[in-house]
């Protein structure tokens, strides 16, 4: 059915989405927490920056990232100074790009979960002499767990669907940056519709099943969000 290179592309896509979801769980949580609780005047601008990838064309993100990661760009200079290999055309480069690209899909559901929780549970925990960090992990995280799950599923699925940014900074390397969406594009470009159909069907079924499970789970009676 699927060729070896199709499987390679699918496995690469899953790995990319998994790594990005884990990184964003760590990076996104403090941002979401701050956005949910802060009354700072920076809240609106930071919230807007986090949401930017929702509306920006992937080509804009890809263009800036390509320049930033290049030998003269800030990220390129940073990797050079640290003695690391350059980011474009590498798996690490794709991970960095996808972290930017999928950020709002992690932060926004987390933020609404924290907001829905309100201030009360943390205040109660404080009166019981829990330290803020302790209260965060033993009270806030369990209460917001459903939000975390939605956020992780959406982040994973959205990273799987990434195409434009990968095309611009990936260099189409098998096993490194030729993710499933790019592999389908290549099949179509080279008139290999049979292969394209098979891989496209896999992606379609995957995306539908992910969303169906998420919505079915959210719709369970007695569950908030």
């Amino acid at each position: 059915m699927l060729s070896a290179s199709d499987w390679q592309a699918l496995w690469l896509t899953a790995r990319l989405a998994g790594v990005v979801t884990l990184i964003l769980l760590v990076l996104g949580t403090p941002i979401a927490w701050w956005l949910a609780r802060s009354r700072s005047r920076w809240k609106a601008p930071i919230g807007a920056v986090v949401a930017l990838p929702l509306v920006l064309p992937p080509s804009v993100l890809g263009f800036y990232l390509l320049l930033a990661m290049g030998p003269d760009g800030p990220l390129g200079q940073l990797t050079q100074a640290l003695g690391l290999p350059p980011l474009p055309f590498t798996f690490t480069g794709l991970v960095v790009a996808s972290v930017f690209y999928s950020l709002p899909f992690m932060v926004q559901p987390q933020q609404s979960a924290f907001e829905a929780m309100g201030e009360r549970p943390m205040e109660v925990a404080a009166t019981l002499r829990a330290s803020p960090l302790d209260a965060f992990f033993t009270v806030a995280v369990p209460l917001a767990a459903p939000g975390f799950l939605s956020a992780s599923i959406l982040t994973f699925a959205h990273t799987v669907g990434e195409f434009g940014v990968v095309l611009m900074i990936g260099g189409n390397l098998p096993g490194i940056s030729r993710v499933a969406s790019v592999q389908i594009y290549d099949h179509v470009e080279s008139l290999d519709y049979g292969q394209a159909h098979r891989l496209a069907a896999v992606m379609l079924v995957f995306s539908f099943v992910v969303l169906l499970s998420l919505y079915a789970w959210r719709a369970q009676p007695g569950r908030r969000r």
Partner: protein
Amino acid sequence: MTRLLAHLLCLGLLLAGASAHAEKIMVAAAADLKFALDEIVTAFKAREPGHEVEVVYGSSGKFHTQIQQGAPYDLYFSADIAYPRALAQAGFAASSVQPYAVGRLVLWSASRDARQLRLSSLTDPKITRIAIANPKHAPYGQRAVEALRAAGVWSQVEPKLVYGDNIAQTAQFVQTGNAQVGIIALALAVNPTLSRQGGYALIPDQLHTPLEQGFIITKRAQGKALAQRFADHMRSPQARAVMSRYGFVLPGEAAAP
């Protein structure tokens, strides 16, 4: 109120009449033509005031697919004449396949003196990233692979390759410094912006099958006078002069050494 509506209707008819007079063509062109065809189109538009010519640049293989699927292009310029030939055979052409140029490959770099580069230099461990066009659907990419194989450096060079979606993106990977060297079209490398950075070295053309390029008027443009006039313009001395200036070898002319 009815007077106003009548006036608007008249205005509408007038505008419709005016636009029916002006013709518009859409051209799909291989990305190596980017600079040369832009000049040719500017000259053509000056001769044909009031008409519109829009050019879309991309990989030849991609346009081949798109035209089969009914894309609204009136002319198709391909970096590999095999694509328009296949379209003509399948009944997608309203003209015969016209050869218009032979393309050349060059080694180009934005960061080092590319004039000294040979294909054998690509094995240098200091060169870690080399950009070529995607050989699956870009003719310049296919020829680059052929040349690397013929030069006997394929196995050492392949792990360093990155693939641009078309020859213009390949050049862009090099220009941004993300690849140190690229195998791109001579027609792009002679553009002043690019040639100022590091120069280029021609790749001997006996290392790959010729990049014979051809165009067709597509089926949907049948009877469009402007499309025919643009095809004629391509054969004019002015257009041929522009093509030569961009390093294309023209049909009926001897190749440069």
